[in-house]
Each structure stands twice: as structure tokens, then as C-alpha cells.
């Protein structure tokens, strides 16, 4: 069976869900991405991606308690599922593997 594909943005969102462990909901994730990568993303894109990840089985969600700043509306919190966790680890390992094999000269320029 072909493994479910994880897109680049999806990977970022999934990592952020993990980063904001137990506090990962729409706005928080959006802000975290902004902080970590400098990307400014619309909230609807975040939502769309989260729901896509949920459909793929990489995240789970549950509704939290009501808050005043949201006009009494509840937050939906996301957590990484075992499948999501495996997918992230796998990606990371693959990259490491590739990195180790790259000759130093090939990538001599870096971010300063």
C-alpha cells in the first residue's frame, strides 16, 4: 500500500500541532507558524489543512471549553495521532539519511 502523502505545508502544520502540544487550535497554530517560519497564513488555510490532516488520520481533535474572548465559542484542539507521529519521524529519518550522504562541498553555502 502506498503511504499517505504528506505535503510540505501539511508537514509544517503537523509539526506545529506537536509544538503546541495540548494547546493546538486554529489561531494558536497560525501564530506558531508565523513565529517559527515567518509565513503569514490565512486562518482558513490553517483550518483547511487541519481538516485534511484529520481526514488522512494524522491528527485527532476534540472540543475544549468555552472562552469569553471567542464570544463564548469553544475551541477545537488538535493532537498528533500515532500515524501522524510515525509519518513525521519517517520524514525526519529520511532527511537525516540523505544529509549524511551529501558531500560537504556540495552544500557549502548556508543561512548566516
Amino acid at each position: 500500500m502506498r503511504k499517505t502523502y504528506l505535503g510540505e505545508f501539511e508537514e509544517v502544520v503537523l509539526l506545529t500541532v506537536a509544538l503546541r502540544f495540548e494547546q493546538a487550535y486554529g489561531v494558536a497554530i497560525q501564530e506558531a507558524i508565523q513565529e517559527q517560519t515567518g509565513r503569514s497564513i490565512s486562518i482558513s488555510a490553517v483550518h483547511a489543512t487541519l481538516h485534511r490532516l484529520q481526514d488522512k488520520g494524522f491528527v485527532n481533535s476534540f472540543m475544549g471549553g468555552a472562552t469569553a474572548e471567542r464570544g463564548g465559542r469553544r475551541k477545537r484542539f488538535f493532537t498528533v495521532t500515532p500515524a501522524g507521529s510515525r509519518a513525521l519521524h519517517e520524514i525526519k529519518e529520511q532527511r537525516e539519511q540523505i544529509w549524511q550522504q551529501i558531500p560537504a562541498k556540495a552544500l557549502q553555502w548556508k543561512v548566516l
Partner: protein
Amino acid sequence: MKQEEHHTPPGWADRLLESFCAAHLLEEVQGDLQELYGKWVKKHGVRKARWLYIMHAIKFFRPYALKRITVNNPTDMFKNYFIIAIRNLLSKKVYSIINIAGLSIGITCCIFIFLYVHHELSYDNFHEQGDRIYRVIRAYQDKDGEHLVGITSPPFAVALVNDFPGIVAEATRFYEDNGLVTYEETSFVEKKFCFADANFFQVFSFPLIQGNPETALSGKHSVVITQEMTKKYFGNEDPMGRVLEYDGNQFTVTGVLRDTPKNSTLTFDFIASMRLFEDRDFFKNWWLNAFQTYVLLGEKVKPETLQTQFPNFIEKYMGNDLREKGLQLQAKLQPISAIYFQSNMEFESGRRGNQQFVYIFALIALFILVIACINFMNMATAQSAKRSLEVGVRKTLGAMRSNLVFQFITESLGLAFISTIVAIVLIIILQLYFNQLVETTFTWPFGIVKTVAFFLIFVIAVGLLAGSYPALVLSAFRPIAALKGKSRSGRQTVGLRQGLVVFQFFISIVLIIATLVITRQIEFVSNKKLGYDKDHIMLVPVNNLDMDKVELFKDELRQNVQIQHVSSMSGEPGGFHDSYSFEIEGHQDEAIDLRTVFTDHDYVKILGLKIVAGRNFSRNFSTDEKETIIINEAATRFLGWQPEEAIGKEIQNKFLDSIPKRVIGVVADYNYASLHSTIDPLAIAIGNDHRVVAIKLAPGNTKEAVAMVEDAWQKATEQYPFAYNFLDQEYDNLYKAEQKQRILFRLFAILAIFIACLGLFGLVTFTAEQRTKEIGIRKVLGASVLELVHLISKDFTRLVFLALLVATPVAYWAMNRWLNNFAYHIDVGIGVFVVAGLIALAIAWFTVSFQSIKAAIANPVDSLRNE
């Protein structure tokens, strides 16, 4: 407080979000957006924050977030609507039959008339270059206003092409003739032997089955014939290259045409090459108007471009002649698509239509359909009391109004569907009869896909027209009121129902009045004293027969005792009477036009005309033949003479007479034209342009007399085929259009009133049913049957009276307009309205009485027994 306000984002954006966003996502989405909004307000201020809020809300318009259309198995609901509709139709058989009968008759009518209208509007639309084809017509003014003439002289076409290169791409002429066509041993008199230029088929799209359209008419002695004529003359043999004789000329068949389309104003059986005339003198004569000239404009040339140059064109070729004759003339362009309905053209032949008639027809079709739809509405709303329970229960169980509307519409669509199927069957059965009625064979104009689409659209249109009002009324019931058995809208719908009944009878009565007036006018026309005797006169057309042969034929006839008079003439009464310009003593400076008859000594005698002054032509005066003329009273009045004064006055036909003729007699006015026009001044002269021989038979054995006339004909002419008619029949033919109108109006009147009565019947049945208890109680308390019948029918009587009241002025106005087509007509008297009203009332009473009597004589025990 103020701060708080800033935290509320724009409400409409929220509502927008709610309208499209899926419910299960809405909370988190709105929550996140509001949280962000709070941050935006702090960061950017309220304005920007609101803007951002709106933009971000809109951005949620993504597939994952959209509302799912959640209908729990919609087919179940449809199935339910369908079952309910069928149950309803079956449980109320009487109403269903009334509705279906009415609707299917209405639809049948509508489709037939649609076919007719479609055919009428499609005239000449098959020419591929039709938008560039124009006919050149002449126009002139006189005291009666503008006259338009569709025929022009031969040089027009040539000059147009030469003078306007680029503007006029092609010009082609068409000339209609008739005469004897002979192939070997067989001869027939052909009415549509026509001539056209070689480029005829490059301008018009009449496809050739055999032969080359580009060269078929280029030979001087070529002829192209239709398929029908091929069969008639050559049977199954190949017609190409065979030789036909016509008017002393030999023509070789160079092509076979498909029979002329039924929607073509140009009609022909033979088209011979116009080149036959190219050496004749008249072909260069600008005054010999006998040809239709058509131009094909260059691509993208506007007709105005050519028309504005016409004054110079006329001046160039005819200016001197016109000034000399003191005439004026204009040329105009008439688009080929306008020819069929152009009503004020003179000297037209070929097929012509009546646009007004087409519109009236279409309107009537629509009305009949509306009458049928009204039946449905009436019966549906009448039963609203019964159905209000159903509506109440459905609503209580959670049906939305839209569900109910949908359910009722399904019912009416079902009804429309069944009716349409019945109508299709009716159309197939009645097709023959209809074709006979309008004298054309209609072919269904659409292919299979379009046909299905057409009927589907029809079903939906009828279903919605009939069903939307009841659906809206019924679905509006409030469940509590409905379940309590109170239907509040009862009052309103009664009023509306009555209004609709009035409308139905209004249309029916108008149609009845129209039928009566047309019938009476036709009777008036056929019984009108015409001033001449049209009975027992046989007409034999002599066409192009030599004069000496005509004389021989007449001599042959005179020997027979069964024949009282024989006379030949240029046109019989009701037939052709040419106009000529005369110079008249005492009126020298005026150009006076008189209608003319050219005949022999016996004209006055055979028609039984009355001489009011002077004398008839006589063989005793040898000068009568060349030097005398008889005029009618209208002419004396026109010239300002008493009949006696006219005798001896000199009068000269400017085109034909070399010397003036003397008036020797004045005849009393007789209607030599149709009653559509008044009696114009007329001159009767002895001459030799004779086209018809009139034979007055002694009353008695007509069959024998006809055989005898044919015998004489064969002796005198040898080869000409024999044809005859009777003057009184020809006379009736003048009013054929009116006869047809009468038949159609009668038919429509019957249908309209039949459908209206179906509806009335349904309503009365319903009323009687509803009032069973009331009637029972009244009966127990001593009301008589008559009183009860009166009770039920008085409402409807009132409605019919109201309809009559509304119909009277409308019909009066319309019929007066129609009657103005006749110079001699009846007055629309009160009698017609009384009769129409009585007919409508009688039919309505008859319809109502069925149910009302049934209700009135019913045993009250039955109606009062159970509560």
C-alpha cells in the same frame, strides 16, 4: 462599554458565513475569527479589523467548509409526492376527468395553432441568402393614398446591376404565366408556367434534384420542372433532355426541381428561361410592368444604401416619361421576409398571409389553454376545505411550506403530463381534419430531441400555470386553523373562483358573438342583391385561345336550345377588371381611371343588367363595335352627370383607343368586384381581350348541358383541355377566407364554452356536495325542488350575466373592426348580443341543472342521517 462594542465583528459577514459554512465547523471557525478580530482591533484599529474579518470570512468559502446538501434520501419524498398525486387523481374521478378533458382539449388546440402559426411565420425563411434578398417594388401616391405594386418592368434588373456594382450582387426576374403545355400526345393547361433569369438559382435556394443550377436556365429554350410535373408528363422516364411545347415554343428540360416548399411565396411548376424574351421589343420597355424583380445585395450592404439612390435611378431612366404623363413614381426595396404578410400590395399573386389573423389565432389558442388551466385552479381551490386537513397534518408532522408547494405542483404537473399525452393522441387522430381545415399539410417541424424538449417545456409550463396558484394558497394554511376545520382563505378563493368563471365565460361569449356576426355577414353577402344574375351561368376560361376559335365556340353554343345566352369577356363579375386611364369630355385636364370590361354585344343581357339610360350594344348598328361604350351609374356620379346627360358624351381610353368612343348607355350599379370594396366607376366596351366565356344555361339538366358545352368546346378548339366553373361558385370563393374564419371561430367557440362548462360542472358538483346538509334541512322545512335549483344556480347565472356585460363592448369593438373589411356589411345589432347571451346562459343552466336537480331531488334523509 465602547471597548466591548469594538469586539463585535460585522454581523452580516457572520450571517454570510453561516449561510455557506457547514454547521459542524461553524463554531470553531467563528470562534477563531472572533479571537483574531480581537487581536486585529488592537493591532490595526477597528476599520482594518472589520475589513480583515470580512476577507477572512469569505476565504472560508472552500470545499471542505461548505455546507453539505443533506437530504435524507430525496427519492423517498418524490415517491411519496407521486403516490399522493395518483391517489388524489383516482379518488376524485369526476374532477380528474374534467381537468384532463379540459386540459387536453386546450393543449390540442394550442399545439395545432402553434403548428399553424409556426408555418405562417416560416414563409421564405429557407433561402440561404434570405437576409440579402429584396424585391424591388413601385410606389405611387394618388387621392386614395399610397399604392404599392410588387411588379416592375423588365429593364429594371439589368439597369440595377449595371448602375450599382458592388451594391447589387445579382438581380433576377420572375414572371408568372399560364397556358397549354404539350408533351407528345398529352396536354394540360398549366397555371404556374413561369419564366426566370439564369441566375435565379444563385439568388434563391430552390434545390435541383437533377441538372446544374448554374447553367440550367442559361439556354434560350431551357425549362426546369418540378418533381410533380415530371411525374405528370413523363411518368417514371428520365425527363432530362425531353422537349415540351408551350405557347408555340419548344423547351428542353434541363433540370428537375424539388417541389416548391409549402412556405414559399414564389410558387411554380415550370421555370423556363427568361432569355426567350430577350429579343422582343417589350423587353426594353420601362412601362411594361409584369415582372417581379429581386435583387441580391452585396455582402454587408444595407438596403438603405441602395434605396437612397433610387430617386436618381428613376429620374435617369423614366424621368422624361413621367413628366410627359404627369405621373410620379418611387422605387422601394421590400425584404423577402416581409412579402408574405405585406397586405397593401396590389397585383399580387402567389401565396399571401394575413398577419392579423395569425395573431388572433395565437391569442385564441392561448385563451383556450388558459380557460382549461382555470378549471384546474378553480377545482383545486374549491377543494381546499377538504385538503386543508391534509395540509394541517403534514405541517404538524414537520412539512415545510416548500415541501407542500412542491407536492401540489407535482400533482398539477402529473395532470399536465397525462393531458399532454391525451393531446398527442388527439393530434394524431385529428391531424387530417385540421390539415383540411387550413388547407396545408403540416409536417412536424422538430426532430426527436427538440420534440421531447418541446413537450416537456409544455408540460412544465402548463403544470406551473395551472398549479402554482392552488399550491401557494393551499400550502399557506396555518396548521392549527386547518386542523380545526377553519379555512380562512375560503372567502378570498370564492371571489377569485367567481372572477375566473367570469373570465372563462367572457372569452366564450366573445367567441360566440364573433361566430354569429361572421355567419350573418356571410349570409348577407351571399343574399345581397348584386345587381346582376349569377345563377345558371357557366364559365369556361379560354386563356390564350385565338379569338376566332372563341367565336367558333360561341357560335357552336348558340345553336343549342338549352343555352339562353353566350358572352365572352375580359373578366366575369368578381374576376379581373383592369384599370385604364381615360380622357373624358368635360374632364380633359384630369387623369381619370376607370375599371374596364372588354366584352361582346351580349354582356348586359347575360348578366341581366338594368339599363337606366340610353341603350345596350346592338348588332343592328355596325358602329357599336368600335365607337361606343357603356358606363355604370357610379361613373356618371363620379363625373358629375345625370344618367341621361351621359349619353353621347365622348370618352377615350388613352392606351387602347385611337378615336374617342361615344357613351350610348348607362347601366345600374352592380357589384362586379367583391363586397369588400365599393362599386367603382366602370366602362364596358366591345373589345377582344377575352379570357372567359360565360354561358347562361336554361334551368334544368345541368349535367347534360355541361356535356353539351364540352362537346362544342372540343369541336371548336381541337386540342385545348376543357375546364369550367359556375359563376355562383366563383362568387362564393371570393369569401373563402371568411368562410374559413367562420368555421374556425365556430370551432373555437364550441371548444371554449365546452371547457368552461366542464369547469362550471365541476364547481356546481362541488357546491352541491358541500351544501348537501343545507339542502336537506331546507327540504325538510318545506323548500320545493324548484326553489332549491334556483338557490344553487342563481350564483352562476349572475356570473354569466357579468361575463356578458364585459364581453359586449369588447366583442362590439372587435367585430366592427372586422366588418370594416367589407364595403357592404351588416350592423352589429343588439340581437347578436342577446342571442349570444342566451346561448351562454342556456348552456350554463343546462350544465348547472344536472347537479342542482340531482341535489334538490335527493332524499333529505340520506344527507341528514349521519353526522
